[in-house]
């Protein structure tokens, strides 16, 4: 279990992470989402032991990560800007990681390289961006570590490759202790694969919960009330995050269980009502909108 406690990091005048408390349970795919500059990469770099927190700690099973090789042997970090040694080949990178990580599985590396159609002896500098991403993931999976940190790793992969990687993750999670932590802007992709999401905004954590729980806890409501008083009563009774009118049709984002919302609405006997589940992207927009990260403010 990865646990961040009161984690803070400042770069000169910029507070990248401020007092984040986050727990990532084992055996799940954890998605780290957030606005631009929210601190996702900073969090992952601290969780990987690259950056030293100004305050707070990141631990794995109670053991600090920073400057702790024993713990770091359980982590493989793939940065958003994939980095390899200069003028090297995939085979040489694998040999290097094989020496560094006791758990590295060379057979698996060779197998995956063949399956992904990547040449092991070709210079990495001649690879495309997507091929480099694939190589990073193959190296990460072959390292057989408990945790795999992927920072924007799925960006640049074509849909087929994305599916293949997802399958690999699922397969590994089923066969061994494996917990991928994925930071991404591509919420639709995360929605398919993640069990739990952590939402970062302006260096702080807005929510961290099981994706299904998150979805059941927030709903989109479309309805036509009989009068304005009904609408006001609903807004008073329920936790309305956003509300938008288009003629008589009112669209609301409401936090709460579906039954509670449904009961409250029925009591007002609306002309029309429909409760819809939210996508991860919509949850993201709603949650960050509450914090002032409103699309309308950006456009206007």
């Amino acid at each position, binding site marked *: 279990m990865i646990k961040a406690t009161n984690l803070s990091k400042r*770069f000169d005048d910029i507070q990248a992470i401020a007092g984040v408390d986050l727990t990532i349970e084992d055996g799940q795919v954890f998605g780290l989402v957030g606005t631009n500059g929210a601190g996702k990469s900073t969090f992952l*770099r601290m969780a*990987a*032991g*690259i*950056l*030293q927190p100004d305050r707070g700690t990141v631990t794995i099973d109670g053991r600090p990560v920073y*400057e702790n*090789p*024993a*713990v*770091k*042997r359980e*982590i*493989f*970090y793939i*940065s958003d*800007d994939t*980095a*390899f*040694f*200069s*003028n*090297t080949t995939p085979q*040489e990178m694998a*040999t*290097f990681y094989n*020496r*560094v*990580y*006791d758990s590295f599985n060379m057979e698996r590396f060779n197998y995956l390289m063949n399956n992904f159609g990547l040449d092991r002896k070709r210079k990495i500098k001649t690879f495309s961006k997507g091929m480099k991403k694939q190589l990073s993931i193959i190296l990460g999976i072959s390292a057989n570590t408990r945790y795999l940190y992927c920072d924007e790793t799925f960006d640049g992969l074509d849909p087929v490759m994305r599916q293949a990687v997802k399958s690999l993750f699922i397969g590994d999670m089923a066969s061994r202790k494996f917990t991928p932590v994925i930071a991404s802007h591509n919420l639709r992709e995360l929605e398919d694969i993640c069990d739990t999401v952590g939402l970062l905004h302006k260096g702080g954590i807005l929510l961290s919960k099981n994706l299904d729980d998150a979805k059941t806890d927030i709903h989109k409501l479309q309805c036509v009330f009989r009068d304005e008083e009904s609408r006001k009563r609903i807004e008073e009774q329920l936790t309305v995050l956003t509300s938008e009118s288009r003629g008589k049709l009112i669209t609301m984002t409401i936090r709460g269980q579906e039954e509670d919302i449904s009961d409250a609405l029925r009591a007002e006997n609306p002309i029309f009502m429909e409760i819809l589940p939210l996508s991860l992207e919509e949850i993201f927009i709603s949650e960050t909108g509450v914090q002032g990260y409103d699309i309308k403010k950006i456009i206007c």
Partner: protein
Amino acid sequence: MTLKRLFVNLLKENSKRRLWTIAMAITANFFAQIVYAILMFGRYSERLATDRTTLDDIRIHFYNNVGGMGNVMVIGITFILPVILALQGYYYLLDSKQTDLYYSLPIKREKLFDINNLCGILVFAIPYLVFNIITVIMGLARGYATFDTILLYPLNALVILLSFIMLYEICTLAVVLTGHIVVAVLGCGVFYLLGSFAYSIFSFLMATFFTSYWNEVSDYNIGYTGSPMGLAGEAIARLHGDVNSEIAFYTFDAAPAILKMLVIAILSFVVSRILVKRRPAEAAGKAMAFSITRPVIKVAIACVAGLGAGLVMYYIGDIHSVPMFIFGIICGVLVVHAVIETIYEFDFKACLSHYASLIVSAVISLIVFVVFFFDIFGYESWQPMPARVASVAIGDDVTYSGIMAPYSKTRDVVSADFYYGATANGMEYALYNMKLTDIDKAEKLTRLGAINAKEFHKDAFSGGQGIYGHTYREDDENTCYRQFQVQWNLKNGKTVRRIYELDINNEEVLSAFKDIYNTDEFRKGKFPVYDIARGEINSLEGQTLTGEVRKKLTDDEMDEFLKIYSEELSGQSFDDLATQIPNITLYGVMDAGKQAYYSQKYNFYIFDSFTRTNEFLKAHEIPTSWWNGDKDVNSIKVEIERWDDVNKQEIYSNWESSDSSEIDTVLKNIIPTDNYNVTGMNSDVYDEDDDATTVQITFNTSAGTYSDYLVILNKDELPDELKKKCFVGDDAALYRESKRGWVKCVNNG
């Protein structure tokens, strides 16, 4: 995996990242050692075959220049490769992508540092050692290296390796402190050069403001002191063999420099290792990794540059202007601050940010200037307390100014001329060897020097004129300033040096100096003849008007000569010397037959009053006078260079004669320049009444022609035409810088 195994594995992996530097190190060492040795072997063979050298000489050359310390190409590699290897090895600290890659690995940062450090050293050390061993084996096979000196080669190799490691660790520290490759290169430059630059500025300031400062500015050391390269160079130079001495006879002298290098290397390594652990990963890409170092380095550079710019402004043009010095300080500090801030922020608009440090730099520089200008700490008048002084050495240019001795008998071994077995001047010899224990007697003279220096400082700057160059003072016609270099050897092992210019027409000065000169301690320290070992020289040679004469003596004969000469030199008082001019200068040499670098080691001035010496020389058919052979001169040609004060130009004229009476007259009134100056004249100093001047004279004899620069005296005795050309009236002075001479001064006194 065990830690040891992991370390070795990572070392192997690290070496794969360094392929091009490995190739560079191998190629450079191959050419610098193997190819160079092969080229030199060809030269050796050719020189041996043509009897232009000896095998011993070649062995020393091989030790000095090929297989040992002084291989210039190896030294060059030792200085340059550390920068390249440190930048390459620690590049991961300067690039954020690489930092993420390395720091995400389950390896401690110190271990990563250690692996890179060791790998960088091995990249140089392995090819260097392999090729060095091969080179020495090649030398052994050809007989250019011998087994009795074989242990010196690994010692040399260790010093070269230590030099490399020290420079490599310094460059590593520069990289660790910075976060950008360009700034890291500049950092290496700062660490390499800032110390020597600061030392040079300090020396120039001392020379500019203090008349009593022992001026090192023109010395070989000036560009290297304070620099790690200079330290390495010093150790290398001190291990260098001398052509006239045994191989590596300075080995013990090199120990302090070697120890310093070791300390610097270890300190740099330890500091870098600690800093790497504390260095934030996000420093990659920034100019400086640690914010605290930014103002420190900036202020240090700005102060040095400000004072340097002040000196440049001060010396621009003929006027030495104090306001220009201050203007230079402000300009220098401002420009350097702006440049460094621009580098720090990667933004030209930030050039004047952090102005507090700009003010600090300017204030520090101005304080330094004020300290020097007003001599706040009393440098000019300070002298060590007599109770702290073990002995005093005094070098003078009043007597025997042309004395020479091998560098090996002075401290000045790190000299460009050293390699050719050249000699040091008598002043340096005296300062190194003289041990005057009568401190009170010496203090009479040095106290006068200090008083004079203090007054000179005050006068010089009240007139806005600098002191640099120790220009002789001319207070009035009756003064005659001469230089005295004083070295106090303190009881704590340290030394203090000062230069004083004193008027030897002053009775108090002359009396004080006479008292010192007439002591045995002074003679033994001043004249190298008292310290010539048996077998050190085997020949005497001298120059007469008909050419060079050289005579080989047995060791016993040479010992006898040295004994007689020493005794007669001891018997020559200051007053005796003041009225004498030597007849000939003889040189003591080691004639090794085919020795390549033949040189004169000592000189002996032969006076009429040295009767026993003259007898010995005559008995051994060695000339006692420069005029030997004067009867063979058929004709002479005098070439005169005269300054036309009216037209402000030099005028050249000749006078020739084959008339025997005219030749005799001229020969009676000429004297070799060295002999004339031995009694305290510099070559540019002449008699006050224009009664002597230097001309070039060519003598034609039956044996050939001989030409030399000579002093021509007694104008009234010369043939009229020659007199006119040499001495055209009282106001037609010949080219010279000063009129005064010691003989005249002493006579006046």
